[in-house]
């Protein structure tokens, strides 16, 4: 695969470098692959490089989708029980 994890940009530095935080762990990485990074953005980090910005909106939407799954089952169950 490619081990990559999200981190929060805490400072931008010269030469396309930035400091990012994984919880309290800070690491200098390159942001040469992604344009217009701002402090506070979350980026996906792989081998010391930001690969992509993480979309908060999409993350929330995905989690909401996952959350709906179980509800649907329960509703179906209720419907069945209601019918019976």
């Amino acid at each position: 695969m490619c081990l990559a994890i999200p981190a929060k940009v805490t400072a931008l530095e010269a030469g396309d470098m930035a400091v990012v935080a994984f919880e309290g762990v800070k690491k200098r990485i390159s942001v040469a692959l992604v344009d217009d990074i701002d402090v506070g953005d979350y980026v996906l980090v792989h081998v010391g490089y930001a690969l992509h910005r993480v979309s908060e909106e999409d993350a929330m939407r995905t989690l909401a989708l996952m959350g709906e799954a179980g509800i649907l089952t329960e509703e179906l169950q209720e419907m069945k029980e209601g019918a019976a």
Partner: protein
Amino acid sequence: MNALERPARLTGSVDMTHGGGGRAMADLIRDLFQRHLSNAFLDQGNDAALLPAETGRLVVSTDGHVISPLFFPGGDIGSLSVHGTLNDVAMAGAKPLYLTAGFILEEGFPLADLERIVISMATAAREAGVPIVTGDTKVVEKGKGDGVFITTTGVGTVPDGVEISAKRVKPGQAVLISGSIGDHGVAILSKRENLEFETEIRSDSAALHTLVAAMVEAVPGIAMLRDPTRGGLSATLNEIAHAAQIGMKLDEAAIPLKPDVHAACELLGLDPLNVANEGKLICICEAGDAEKLLAVMRAHPKGADAAIIGHVVEDDACLIQMETGFGGARVVDWLAGEQLPRIC
């Protein structure tokens, strides 16, 4: 007297004369080792320390310490060499009484660094209340050592009625840990060349004998104690499982893990279960004693985050199985060698 009252004052570096048996060596012993480590036994000044006879059962343990970097967040090779051996003695349920220390110094090693290390050892030994009673120094040529290696040996006595042994580990018993895992390994990795990262995490290097004393007093029937150092929790539990011919079931969610250690492990692709600790212990006891022991551990400063993390089961394959925080199951295996950071 603490380390601050005796600042390092030596300058220059180790050379071959420091191990040559002549006056340079005598000066080094007097100005460095005796000065900082002084106690009644060491000050006898003989090659062998004369100690009072002890009654009961003695335990002895020896441990060589090599570490890079020599100074790391939360400690250095000096404090580590004291804590490591004290803990090995304590894991027999024993009260440590004396330590010895052997130094292998590399030619060219700065004397100021050596003094810092010796002061750190002195502080650790004093805090533990265990004197370093005799020692030895050798010097090797430049390139034949890594600055300094320290071998320490510890002697202690085991209270009557205490019988710590893998043979007493049986199915149904509870598995406890004294606190969060992986702190030491992550602190060391954060300083490793080409991996550097910043973290507040410090090595957990600490002497655990007073914690052990409180534990064996409360529950003399503890079956097993072990400090999960190199190879981490997984290696220690697998060793015990193979020695006792049993298996274990762990609950991942119950294993204490600091958020920063978790984050550093995610970053480097490491499993915190395989990462080293230097101030934690594993305890296995009868299930009925577990809650009592947990309370005793949590009341001690070195066991504040103690937790019951699993139990012993029958298993001819001696596997450590774990219910993951996700709700699935996996094996907790031990590693062949060092866990290397990975990118995939």
